[in-house]
């Protein structure tokens, strides 16, 4: 079900761990499935010198975290802010349809860490405290069933056309 690249990054995750005196920390959590990705940054001259992660989540979430850190390492902060969830999923050579949302947490955590770093620089944030972002998916998913493409009203629990569960809370 997972691509070889996903499996590789899951089984041999790169950059696992915490950075003791991190310059920026982002924590993104999904309140529905409980998954959580923490990203720790060491920044020098606006370049990500070191990056580490800790993740509570499925194989895809771990692989996404690992790939994300690989993509971000060595990049300038501005470049890193441009890394999207799609970039990560593509670098992993695809994720199963029902795991695409897992990749959403990855880039969000990176961006949160960068924001946290910048906030600290601007003294808007206290060093040692992480930027915490609850990850709530956009509502747009709810309206069109991803399985049969039919429209559904508001917060429908399942698709009225095909009966599929609608994962919009995730």
């Amino acid at each position, binding site marked *: 079900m997972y691509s070889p690249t996903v*499996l590789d990054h*899951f*089984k041999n*995750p790169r950059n*696992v761990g915490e950075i003791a005196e991190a310059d920026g920390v982002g*924590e993104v959590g999904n309140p*529905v*499935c*409980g*998954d*959580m*990705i*923490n990203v720790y940054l060491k920044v020098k001259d606006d370049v990500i010198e070191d990056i580490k992660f*800790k*993740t*509570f*989540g*499925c*194989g*895809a*979430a*771990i692989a996404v975290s690992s790939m994300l850190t690989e993509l971000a390492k060595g990049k300038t902060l501005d470049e890193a802010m441009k890394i999207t969830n799609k970039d990560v999923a593509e670098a992993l050579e695809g994720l199963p349809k*029902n*795991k695409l*949302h*897992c990749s959403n947490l990855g880039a969000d955590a990176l961006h949160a860490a960068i924001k946290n770093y910048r906030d600290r620089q601007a003294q808007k944030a206290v060093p040692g405290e992480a930027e915490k972002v609850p990850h709530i998916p956009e509502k747009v998913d709810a309206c069109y069933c991803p399985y049969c493409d039919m429209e559904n009203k508001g917060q429908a629990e*399942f698709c*009225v056309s095909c*009966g599929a*569960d609608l*994962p919009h809370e*995730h």
Partner: protein
Amino acid sequence: MDAVYFDNYAATPLHPRVKEAMHRIVDEVFGNPSSDHRFGQAAAEALDTARKQTANLINAEPEEIVFTSGGTESVNHAIKGVAFSQREKGRHIITTNIEHKSVLNCLRTLRLLDYHITSLDVDEYGLVDPAAVEKAITDQTVLITIQLANNEIGTLQPIADIAKIARHKKVVFHTDAVAAAGIIPIDVKALDVDLLSLAANQFNGPNGVGALYVKRGTPIWPLLEGGVQENRKRAGTENVVGIVGLGVAAEMAWLESHERLEKFRTLRRKLIDGLNARIPHLKFNGHPTQVLPHLVSVSVEFIEGEGLMLLLDEEGICVATRSACASGSLRASHVLIGTGMDFALAQGTLLITLGRDNTEAEVDRLLEVMPRVVQTLRDMSPIYQKNVAA
């Protein structure tokens, strides 16, 4: 080293006798059991034998067995068949919060079709209170559907007690016994249920084959309508190869019942004690005694189940997980949540199910490997150190 298979709840290795029988049908019997010529009659005889074997497993009469395409069809047939047949009498159905998805989703659809569902709470072990069932019955109630054994935590419900209440109140009672049939002895006459679902792949028979026990006189519409097969209760040309596999699997489950139960009990004890001794922060789920003998549900704190399952697979050990991430549905197990477990812990739940082919050496292997992979994932988890330190 051969891979070790501890996911006998998802599917079981075919019994050698089941393979033999299926091979024979593939080679020799292709006729349609409804055809009156020799080719058809050979197929019809194969079905007859399978029907007797399946009936015998649960002490039913052969005419009370309806072959289906698996547990899901049996459950859908039972629930929708009774609901539609009884719709003039009433539209109230009683169930519990921890039924299998096949039950839940049928009832969800019936809700859209103007049925009214009462879903009962269970306690921390997953047990439902028969008194609560009795209290929920109204004069509109046409069906009670409660599983015999839970497929995620193994808890056995007091089915005979509930059946007695249902009989007394003249409400049709279906029990989803997919997780239990072929594992523990079941006697439909002693239980006195009206409908009972089972599936072959739980007891060394093939995937996608099951049966619905329909007590004579039970008002039920067919779910699959068309020809007059299966005593007019289930239309469609029969999956002869699969049904023969179910029949032989049922016979072997019956014949080997004692030795299998013996083995399950020994290995299960060893597994639970061994894990407990080797890994801190575990929670074993389900009722301590009223429980399936071949199933261990264990929640591993601070980590998520899919990763654990994949790493074990990497080591050649196959288990299942109840984490939302792996289920394709992306919600936490409603069963674990139904017993009051919190979300993060539910995410770390493994389901280890034993089969007739498992050995002590295989359990030893799991006990050796599991502590290591659990630690790998815990080291990766943002919530491990915080909590263990605290």
